C-alpha cells in the first residue's frame, strides 16, 4: 500500500475521487488533501477549510488519517508536482474537469500536467458520464 498520498481537490471535485482515494489507502497511509489557491490569506484558509470539510469528513469515516494543505501558486499542476516531490509522496490522486468548446481547446489540463511530470504513481479519476 502507499505510505503518503496527495489528494488534489477543487470545488469541482466529485465524491468519486475521494472514494477512490480512500480505497487506495491503508491505515498507515498519510493523506495530504491539497488545494491550490492563487492568493493565500487567512480568509482563504478559513474558506477552504469550510469548503473541503466534506472531504475530510469522508476520509475520516473511512478511517484514513488526512490533513488539509493549502498552497499558493499560479501554476496549479507545477505546485501539485512539487508538493508531492517535497513531501516524498508515492501517489497522487486527482479528478479531471471536462471542458468543452473553445474554452476546452484553450484551457490547460492540470491532470495531464501531473501525469507527465509527477515523480510517483498518478491516479486520474474520470467519471463515467464524462465519456458520453
Amino acid at each position, binding site marked *: 500500500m502507499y505510505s503518503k498520498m496527495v489528494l488534489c481537490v*477543487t*470545488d*469541482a471535485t466529485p465524491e468519486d475521487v475521494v472514494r477512490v482515494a480512500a480505497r487506495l489507502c491503508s491505515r498507515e497511509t498519510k493523506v495530504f488533501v491539497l488545494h491550490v489557491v*492563487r*492568493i*493565500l*490569506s*487567512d*480568509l*482563504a484558509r478559513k*474558506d477552504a477549510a469550510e*469548503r473541503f470539510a466534506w472531504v475530510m469528513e469522508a476520509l475520516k469515516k473511512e478511517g484514513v488519517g488526512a490533513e488539509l494543505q493549502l498552497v*499558493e*501558486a*499560479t501554476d*496549479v499542476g507545477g505546485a501539485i508536482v512539487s508538493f508531492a516531490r517535497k513531501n516524498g509522496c508515492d501517489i497522487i490522486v486527482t479528478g479531471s*474537469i471536462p*471542458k*468543452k*468548446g*473553445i*474554452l476546452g*481547446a*484553450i*484551457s*490547460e*489540463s492540470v491532470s*495531464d*500536467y501531473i501525469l*507527465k*511530470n509527477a515523480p510517483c504513481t498518478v491516479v486520474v479519476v474520470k467519471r463515467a458520464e464524462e465519456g458520453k
Partner: protein
Amino acid sequence: MLNPLPLIVFAATIFLVFKHPLVKIPFTSRHVYLDYGLAPVLGALVLVLTLTAGPDVVLRGIMGSDSLRPYSVLILIISLSYICISLEYSGFFEYISLRVAGSARGSGRRLFLYIFLLTLVLTLFTDNDIIILTMTFIILYIARNAGMNPMPFLFAQFFAVNIAGMALYIGNPTNIVVADAAGISFAEYARWMVIPSFVSAGACFVILFLLFRRMIPERLNETGAYSTASIRDREGAAFGLFSLIVVILIMSIPSGWTGLPVWFSPLLFAFIMFLRDALRYRSGVRSVVSRVPWKIVPFLIGFFIIVETLVSTGWVSLLASGIARLSGSMPGAVLGMCIVSSLLACVMNNHPMVILLVRGLQSSQLSAGSRLGASLAVIAGSNFGANLTLVGALAGIMWAGILSDRGQSLSFSTFSKYGFAVMIPVMLVACLTLMLELAVSGVGAW
C-alpha cells in the same frame, strides 16, 4: 512579394499563447507549457535563426524606436505590479472589499452597485489582475455564505475592471505602450481618458443591471458580519497606499520638470517596498515576489521583436496605409479605430494587437489630431476588447481557469454573448464622448 514568414510566425505565436500545449523539453523527461511566457520568445528565435530578424531588428525590438521604449514599459509594469502586490499582501484589498460588502446591509442590489463601484475605484490606481483575483475570491465567498448565484457580481467586477483600467496611464500595460508611442504624458492621458471611462462605466452599469436584475436577490443573509473584517498588516497597507499615491503624484508631474524617466519613481518605490517586505515578512517576501507577473517580460519583448520584423519586411506599412485611410476623419479615427482594435484584441489578445497597431500608427502619415484620436481609440479598444471574449486579455484566460476550479462553469460563448451585448453600446458612448472632447478642445478639427 513580401516575405510571409514573419506573418506566419506572428499568427502561430498567438495560436500557441492561447493553446499553450504541454511539450516535452528535449533530452529530459520534463514537460512544460508552451505558454505566453515561452511562445513569443520561441517565435522571435525562429525569426532570428532563419535570418529574417537581424541583430538591428532585435535591438530595436528591445530598445524601441521614436518615443516607444519597450524596456521602459517593462520596468514600469513590473514596478507598479510589485507595489500593488505588496499592498495586496498586506490584506488591504480583502479588508476593504469585505467592509464594503458589509455596508450593503443585506441588500442584493446595493451589493451589486457597491461591488461595481469598489472595483472601479480600486482598478483606477492598481493592477487589473490583482483586483480580479481578490474580487473573484470575495464574491465567491460572499455568494457561498449568502447562498446566491455569483454570476451577476462576477460579470460586474470583471467588466468594471476593464473599463476603469483605461482611465489612467497606469491602469493597463496596453495604455502605457500606446501612450508612450504617441508621446502622451500621464497628465495629458488623464485629461482625455478619465471622462470617457466614467461615462462608459455608467453605461456599463445600467446595461448590466438591466440584464441581470432578475438574478440579483433582494435580500442576502449574513453580510453584516463582514464589517468586522480586520487587516493583516495595517502599517504595510498604509505604507503601500502612501507609496502608490506618491508614485502617481510624481508621475503626473511633467517629466520635463524633474528630468527623470517615467519609470524612475515606480522602480524606486517598488524597491523600497521590497526592502520593507523583506524585513517585515522575512521569507514571506518570496511569496510577494512570486506573484509578480514576470512572464509578461518575455511575452512583450517577444512580440515587440516579432512585430519589428513585420515592420522591416514591409507588412506594417500595408497596415499603416489602411490606418491612414481609416483615420482621415474624426469618426474614422476614433470610432473606426476603436472598433478595429477591440475586434482585433478579442481574437488575437490585446497585447499583440496594441504592439502591432502602435507600430502601424507610428509608420502612418497622419495629422497630429488624427494621430491623437486614433491612439486614444486604440487604448479604449485594448481595454474594451478584454470584455468581448475571454481571450481578449490574459486576465480573461486566468479568470476562466479560476471559475472552472471553483465549480462555476462559464463557457466562452456565454461570456462573449454578454460581452458583446454590454460592450457595443458602451463602446459607442465612449467614442462619442471622446469625439466630443476632441472637438471641444479644437484638436479634433481635422
